[in-house]
């Protein structure tokens, strides 16, 4: 084992973290839109969104990744940047799941809260923003961070399809060179854990903090 190999793993780790962060950002924004659209009073919007979620839940991430990487070139666009393709696929994927998680959390806020806000004269958007979303957010924290851990681990799929250099990809390359699968996949596993464990801990902390008024 030499330092060059360790450096390669750390470089891969950066690739994993970068793709994860981009997914949190874009998947989160997209997920919020999905969640709001899913409970829209406009039936058509709610239906289309539901269909989208069901489609995404039935599609393996691997296939989705392939579609995002090869799809554009089939439609005549020139070679697609692997990070772009991976982020696009992860956004579609995370948006659908986060949207469904958050819809559940928004709907878990009692109906009487809507009514109280409505009777005070708040518009639908004010009710959502000032009364429902803050309470839904509190409920959403544990499952959301739980899913963020899934996202971090699922970025490894990007290596299989689009050749994006992240942790699993570099571990595989190192194994091919050194024939020491246990060592390098083991190290990769430790690095994944090093990212995911603080995330889970943070989730528990956040949960306690947000629950301060519901102790």
């Amino acid at each position: 084992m030499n330092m060059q190999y360790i450096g390669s793993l750390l470089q891969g780790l950066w690739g994993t973290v970068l793709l994860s962060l981009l997914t949190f950002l874009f998947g989160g924004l997209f997920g919020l839109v999905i969640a709001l659209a899913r409970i829209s009073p406009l039936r058509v919007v709610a239906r289309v969104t539901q269909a989208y979620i069901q489609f995404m839940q039935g599609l393996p991430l691997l296939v989705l990744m392939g579609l995002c990487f090869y799809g554009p070139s089939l439609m005549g666009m020139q070679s697609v940047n692997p990070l772009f393709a991976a982020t696009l696929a992860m956004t579609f994927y995370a948006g659908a799941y986060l949207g469904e998680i958050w819809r559940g959390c928004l709907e878990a806020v009692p109906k009487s809260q809507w009514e109280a806000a409505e009777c005070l004269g708040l518009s639908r958007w004010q009710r959502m923003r000032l009364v429902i979303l803050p309470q839904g957010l509190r409920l959403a924290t544990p499952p959301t961070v739980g899913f963020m851990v899934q996202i971090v681990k699922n970025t490894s799929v990007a290596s299989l399809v689009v050749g994006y250099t992240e942790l699993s990809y570099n571990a595989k390359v190192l194994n091919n060179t050194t024939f020491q699968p246990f060592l390098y996949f083991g190290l990769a596993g430790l690095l994944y854990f090093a990212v995911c464990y603080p995330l889970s801990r943070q989730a528990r902390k956040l949960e306690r903090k947000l629950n301060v008024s519901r102790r």
Partner: protein
Amino acid sequence: MSAVVELKNIHKTFGTNHVLRGVSFEVHRGQVAAIIGQSGSGKSTALRCMDRLETIDQGELTVCGHALHDPKLDVKTLRRDVGIVFQSYNLFPHLTVEQNVTLAPRTVKGIKASEAREIATAVLAKVGLKEKMSAYPEQLSGGQQQRVAIARSLAMEPKLMLFDEVTSALDPQLTGEVLRVMEQLAKDGMTMVLVTHEMAFARNVAHQVIYMRDGKVHESGTAEILRNPQTPALANFVCAEK
């Protein structure tokens, strides 16, 4: 005296359940009307119709000059004139007492933070909870929460206050503190419609008592009807509620 609330032959159906079967009555400015009756008599539904939490199927319903049977009704202006307090308080758990009270004045009326704070202080003083401004709802007793809910409605300066069984979830002692606040409101001349099981309160405070049965007004009049019911049904009901 002008009618603040006027129901004319109101009908309301939930699925196959005909809840309101031609309800008519009026409530005048500065008056307190108590709607009483068994569970399922339609009294809460009638009240909820007045704030358009339910739409009516038939009849004419006018509240503070707004025609609720008119499809072109501006719900927003209706809600500015009408305040409602619920059995389960429905305070916003993520906001402090002060934020609960100032939320609507600030967002709906666009009142500045400092002014809204003054309003909050005033209405909370009225319900005897000025010192609880920075508490969260769950740190308060049920009676205190309900008084905050009343203050939250008052902060919008409604012309009419609706109370939907506001003491039903409270023990007798806490019920007393809420009823005292409501009694004071009545003395201040607020027009109030309340659905209640508190017969003593209806007898002492209400100008008008409406006894509902099977989706209709079975008997109505001054609070005197609670002492001398004219129909056997009300006599039975008054006996049972004692």
